[in-house]
């Protein structure tokens, strides 16, 4: 409970937690659009493209204020995203090839600038490389204010462009047909995504930022088929991941915040994939099993019925060894026999003999008729 006490009274814990919550929520909202538009990896590219911006901003201004560095990061991140779009549009190279190309080249150039700065005399570049892996613990109150203000700007823009972004996410051709400037809307959405990515760089780092864009949105997608609830759930999952990541890393020794946040978000995805909505893997698995055992029960009943048809007395007990069904082991057979007995379609006679009941014959006959009817249909 110390953590929650600190959350209110401890400066560092409060600042870091607030920061990660804001970052999680912002990236959840904008990530939703990215995931729906099959641009999940754009966040990854943008975060890598931000590195030269951070380095160049420092090289040109000699300052390390978050605002200055974020401006640089935002500019090169935006430029990188634009280049990805242009390469995708103007060449045969697929979207993912364009992403990989741009991210590696920009990041490589960022390294060039970083090493160049390192070798300059009396350059206090220390702290720039925290952008690579993220260091939430160094967040200051004014950093959180910066993040809050920029995050609010992104949220307001999302509200203003809601209808437009929704349409270009689901049916860009229709938007084009309505005479909307789709490329402009694209660019506005992309700019907000760049903003969200850049905000998180300092605390989760370049590599892990992509997960912050994808994970909350991917998890939220499992619970709903509507955009507004998806965005809300993604924001909530992002915020909770941010808070729990900060918590885990505060409570555990030598636990970096960024990876902790990412693992919480990844766990949210796994849970959502398993249990989310009716498409959840667990529900699907149960449904398939039920359906399958239904078919197997029918098969077993019909096997008895066919035997009965070959003899005068349909109620005569049959030896179990005579009933053979492809692919059915003893365990499954005994299981299903118990089911048939419980339904009152079969009765056990002695150790190894079973007999059909009146209801059993009736059910089997109607099943047989249904199968014959289905077989006759073209």
């Amino acid at each position, binding site marked *: 409970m110390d953590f929650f006490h600190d959350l209110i009274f401890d400066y560092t814990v409060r600042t870091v937690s607030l920061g990660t919550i804001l970052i999680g929520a912002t990236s959840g909202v904008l990530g939703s659009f990215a995931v729906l538009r099959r641009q999940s990896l754009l966040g*990854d590219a943008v975060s890598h493209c931000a590195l030269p911006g951070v380095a160049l901003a420092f090289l040109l201004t000699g300052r390390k204020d978050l605002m200055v560095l974020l401006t640089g990061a935002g500019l090169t991140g935006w430029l990188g995203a634009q280049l990805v779009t242009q390469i995708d549009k*103007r060449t045969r190279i697929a979207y*993912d090839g364009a992403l*990989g190309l741009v991210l590696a080249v920009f990041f490589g150039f960022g390294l*060039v600038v970083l090493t160049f700065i390192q070798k300059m005399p009396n350059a206090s570049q220390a702290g720039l490389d925290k952008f690579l892996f993220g260091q939430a613990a160094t967040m200051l109150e004014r950093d959180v204010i910066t993040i809050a203000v920029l995050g609010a700007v992104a949220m307001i823009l999302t509200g203003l462009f809601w209808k437009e972004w929704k349409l270009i996410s689901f049916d860009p051709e229709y938007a084009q047909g309505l005479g909307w400037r789709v490329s402009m809307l694209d660019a506005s959405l992309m700019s907000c995504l760049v903003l969200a990515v850049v905000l998180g760089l300092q605390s989760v780092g370049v590599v892990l930022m992509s997960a912050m864009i994808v994970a909350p949105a*991917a998890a939220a*997608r499992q619970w709903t088929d509507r955009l507004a609830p998806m965005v809300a759930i993604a924001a909530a999952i992002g915020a909770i991941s941010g808070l729990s990541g900060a918590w885990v890393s505060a409570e555990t020794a*030598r636990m970096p915040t*960024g990876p902790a946040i990412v693992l919480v978000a990844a766990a949210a995805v796994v849970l959502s994939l398993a249990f989310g909505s009716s498409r959840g893997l667990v529900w699907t698995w149960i449904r398939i099993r039920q359906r399958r055992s239904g078919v197997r029960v029918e098969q077993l009943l019909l096997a008895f019925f066919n035997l009965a048809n070959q003899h005068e007395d349909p109620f005569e007990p049959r030896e179990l060894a005579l009933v053979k069904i492809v692919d059915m082991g003893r365990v499954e057979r005994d299981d299903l026999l118990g089911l048939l007995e419980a339904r009152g379609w079969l009765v056990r006679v002695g150790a190894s003999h079973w007999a059909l009941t009146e209801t059993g014959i009736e059910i089997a006959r109607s099943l047989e008729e249904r199968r014959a009817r289905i077989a006759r249909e073209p």
Partner: protein
Amino acid sequence: MTPQLEIQLIAVVTAAACAIPGTFLVLRRMAMLTDAISHSILPGIVIAFFITHDLASPLLVVAAAVMGVITVWLVESIFQTGNLRQDAAIGLVFPALFSIGVILIAQHAGHVHLDLDAVLMGELAFAPFDRMIIAGTDVGPKSLWVMTAILLLNIAVITAFYKELTIAAFDQGLASLLGIRPTLIHYSFMALVSITVVGAFDAVGSILVIALFIAPPATAWLFTDRLAVMIGAGTGIGAAAAILGYQMAHALDASISGSMATVAGILFAVGFLIAPEYGVVAKWHRRREQMLRARIRMLVVHLLHHETKDLRDEERWVSTLHQHLTWDADVTRRTVYEARAAGLVQIDDGDLRLTDTGLEKARLAMTEF
């Protein structure tokens, strides 16, 4: 051999080894898997290090390569549930695995000398210091031997299974029909990619691995439609990026891997602009030509429509023509100029008339409609 030469040689061999599988990845729209693999092998390396306590152990490479294949398998399994698309699956799997690696390192910070920065950025400058010693004789840098072995393996596999890989890359349906098992080919190929990524990652760092896998084949694709040519050109472009990048790093006294990635990007940018068929300039030029030809056709048809002896038909006057065609005045002037140069029209005291060739072209255009 001087260290400078050795560094360039290692980079060239690595570039060649990466360009071969890279070509197939770029063509099959799976380029981002290199990004994913190069990050997600981290926990493999860390776990293997905990077991062996030896950074030079070959088990590290094996574990990393296995991790690469696991990454691909995880991505496909998530994708096959039908609940998430492939890009989202990639974007989830590799940061999660990378996070596990980072946490493992942080938890055992005192005992592990795995430098995360060096892992990600790579330091080619140090590669010549790690020597291969056979029977007491120094036979060269270790990574040069490793990358040469991987390069030969790649060449051998691609040559032996060229047909299978090509068919599986371009037509999965046909591949299954012909009895080439696409899944088997896919995973074997992914194992090859993982081995190459791991080896190259050790030599040049993960960012340059991604750059060398994607940028040279992508650049080559701007110039050719043939797979074999693309592989060869990709190798050449990668090697050029390595050598030029080294010169750049030397001049700026900056990161070697970063410079090589930057040059690879510059080479792509050049190709993107000037490639004869698929370059932006060529496409722009072609589009202009097509527009002009279409305009000339419209012009001659327009003149045919107003082909009377009457000198007073304003529709034909050079001074008012653009209003009737509802074109920009400059565009009209240029079209008329080009049409005159082609001998399709002549100007007779401000009156634009079709020549015989022009008349013929206009009639032909009408019948084509």
